[in-house]
């Protein structure tokens, strides 16, 4: 009871109510705008005009998402964010692809939820609130309404009759407020998880690295989910149609586009499951995919033609367009070979990882230059000065000269120590001489933590792979010492066939930042070798860093 009262006086409760009611306005707007634009895109798909259409779609989605994020922040007190695209590297197509990153699809999902879930809830809520308020205030207005007023399930006609409404309203109003605000609660996590900006390319690679290991859904399961969702989305209008006027079977206009999209999805799944099908398309995955899409679109248009009363067979023009596009693609495949799509993709990956490797190298070289300049070089200058002064004092003050010489020797020792540390940071000699096991043993022996090293790497991989694995372990160990306040660290490296698998696990407090310069540098180094790096570091720990490096 006390908790209920506390909820009733909490301003947050009324903010949540307000949030639910906003769906009355934004729900229909989002839905109609998105349906219009998606239909436009689908209709224009075989023409170049589809490009401006998808750009408008992307911008509109992100704009709506930004507004929704502001609403969610203010009314639900959650950390929702404008669903901005990740900064892309130069190039129109890269930019366009970036616009359709994960944040776009998450925002789409959120906008649809606002219509399909938020709008019905809002209708129920506003009805409940209206009935409650109406009952409560019934004595004030019922007597003036000719013929009485319908209040929910009863119909008072006179002032006395309407007095019954007051206690009823007093009971219903808080009840509907309490229930309605609770309905708003699940929207908070939905907003904060769906309305987010795309992180930049690097953390995307991390989540990708994890996703590749443990995909949430297999392609087959994803197709089943899609089919089930379509069944609901088509079933609902059919039920509504059956319950209402019946007559013209309008739900076909919902069913047809959804079925077309499902058919295309199914075709992609079939292609992934049965690679042999690709052989029928001269080995080109892209040609196979486009043929499926083209066939689905043609079927869609023919169905539309059939439903709209036959007549002039206009879909032939669109089908001609599709045939021309497929024909051009076929010629390209004939001329350029089947693997062009895969090659293009591979080239893009290589471009990205090479750029990353070059960046990482550049940063590293700059660090080395700075260390040399501030460290050993400065010490050698000081040493030279001590020697010069000693030379000067040699005749008149041999004792002072002796002191200066001792100073110079100390300086030389410091310079050597610094150079040694620097060299070890670039490439520890023992790694080249004795391999990962000895190098990590040596690293562990200089660590203040208790480090367990287990290395089974036979035969030895290429030096670049060894070196990358070593530095991943070294950086992880340094992080465990500096940031995670760990006491124990486990380093495990195994070679499984042509894959080097590394895992560093500590017992610290977690919360490592995968965008920190150290981890980013490592990721670039690993990716340059076609490897993957994942950092799992929940707040409170523990941190596990895994790397996989091909070493065939």
């Amino acid at each position, binding site marked *: 009871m006390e908790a209920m009262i506390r909820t009733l006086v909490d301003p947050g409760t009324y903010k949540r109510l307000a949030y639910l009611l906003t769906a009355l306005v934004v729900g229909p707007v989002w839905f109609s705008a998105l349906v219009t634009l998606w239909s436009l895109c689908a209709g224009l798909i075989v023409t170049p005009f589809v490009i401006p259409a998808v750009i408008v779609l992307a911008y509109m989605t992100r704009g709506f998402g930004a507004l929704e994020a502001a609403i969610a922040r203010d009314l639900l007190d959650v950390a929702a964010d404008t669903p901005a695209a990740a900064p892309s590297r130069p190039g129109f197509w890269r930019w366009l692809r970036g616009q359709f990153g994960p944040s776009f699809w998450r925002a789409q999902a959120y906008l649809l939820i606002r219509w399909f879930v938020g709008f019905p809830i809002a209708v129920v809520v506003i009805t409940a609130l209206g009935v409650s308020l109406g009952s409560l205030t019934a004595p004030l207005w019922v007597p003036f309404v000719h013929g009485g007023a319908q209040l929910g399930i009863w119909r008072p006609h006179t002032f006395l009759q309407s007095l019954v409404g007051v206690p009823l309203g007093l009971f219903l109003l808080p009840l509907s407020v309490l229930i309605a605000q609770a309905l708003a609660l699940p929207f908070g996590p939905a907003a904060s998880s769906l309305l987010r900006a795309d992180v930049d390319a690097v953390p995307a690679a991390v989540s990708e690295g994890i996703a590749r290991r443990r995909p949430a859904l297999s392609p087959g399961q994803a197709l089943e989910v899609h089919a089930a969702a379509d069944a609901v989305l088509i079933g609902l209008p059919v039920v509504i149609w059956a319950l209402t006027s019946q007559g013209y079977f309008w739900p076909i206009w919902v069913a047809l586009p959804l079925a077309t999209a499902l058919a295309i999805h199914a075709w992609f799944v079939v292609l992934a499951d049965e690679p042999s099908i690709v052989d029928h398309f001269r080995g080109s995955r892209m040609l196979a995919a486009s043929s499926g899409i083209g066939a689905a679109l043609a079927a869609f248009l023919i169905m539309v033609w059939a439903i709209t009363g036959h007549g002039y067979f206009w879909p032939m023009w669109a089908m001609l367009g599709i045939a021309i596009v497929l024909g051009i693609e076929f010629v390209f495949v004939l001329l350029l070979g089947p693997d062009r799509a895969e090659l293009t993709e591979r080239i893009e990956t290589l471009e990205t990882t090479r750029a990353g490797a070059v960046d990482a190298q550049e940063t590293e070289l700059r660090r080395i230059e700075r260390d040399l300049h501030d460290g050993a070089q400065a010490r050698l200058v000081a040493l030279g000065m001590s020697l010069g002064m000693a030379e000067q004092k040699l005749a008149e003050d041999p004792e002072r000269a002796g002191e200066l010489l001792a100073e110079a*020797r100390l300086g030389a020792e410091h310079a050597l120590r610094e150079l040694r540390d620097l060299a070890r940071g670039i490439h520890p000699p*023992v790694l080249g001489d*004795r391999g990962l096991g000895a190098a990590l043993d040596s690293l562990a*022996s200089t660590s203040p933590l208790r480090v367990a090293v287990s290395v089974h790497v036979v035969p030895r991989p290429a030096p670049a792979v060894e070196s990358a694995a070593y530095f991943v372990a070294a950086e992880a160990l340094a992080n465990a010492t500096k940031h995670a306040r760990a006491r124990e660290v486990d380093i495990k490296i195994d070679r499984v066939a042509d894959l080097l698998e590394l895992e560093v696990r500590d017992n610290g407090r977690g919360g490592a930042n995968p965008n920190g310069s150290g981890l980013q540098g490592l990721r670039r180094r690993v990716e340059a070798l076609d490897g993957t790096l994942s950092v799992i570091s929940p707040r409170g720990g523990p941190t596990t860093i895994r790397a996989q490096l091909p070493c065939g």
Partner: protein
Amino acid sequence: MRVVIAEDLVLLRDGLTRLLRDNEIEVAAAVSDGEALVREVIAQKPDLAIVDIRLPPSFQDEGLRAALEARRRAPGVAVLVVSQYVEHTYAQELLADGRGGVGYLLKDRIMHVADFLEAVRRVAGGGTALDPDVVAQLFSRRREDGPLERLTPREREVLSLMAEGRSNAGIAEALVLTVGAVEKHVQSILSKLDLPQSTGDHRRVLAVLAYLQEAG
């Protein structure tokens, strides 16, 4: 005393030769790769070979392997391996045959001329000279609750110097103590760690190192 030097950098080879000659040590040969070292050691039968760990052609641990090979083919020749960096793995490999007359030092130590010459003489005489950094690496592996914690700070200092291969007199000099006081510390350490009371310096080093290795 006669030594053979193997060092590929001319600057360092000439510097070391001059330093030794200035201190009445005869440099029988100064070569620049491992193969030449083995050849010269067999031909010259020197008291000591001073070897850089990194030598051509591979510039990895060529010098270490050449030094071990020379010792195998000319028993009785002591070797002192010098390097820009030290790793306890290499120290273990050098000490593996259990015979005395081995040293492993950072090149930095050459700058402390007196100490360096003392180490050269000690190794040539069948003793041991292990770099303080190697010993420190071994010490850092100790467990928090291990028996080393039962030693007093002074005893740990003495133990480090024992591990480096110094004699009681050498330890006394380094810590500015009397030889008698050092002997008392050594007795105490050996009994606290359950180590045998061996007489030879090198055997004592091996026992201490084996102990530190175990404790790690």
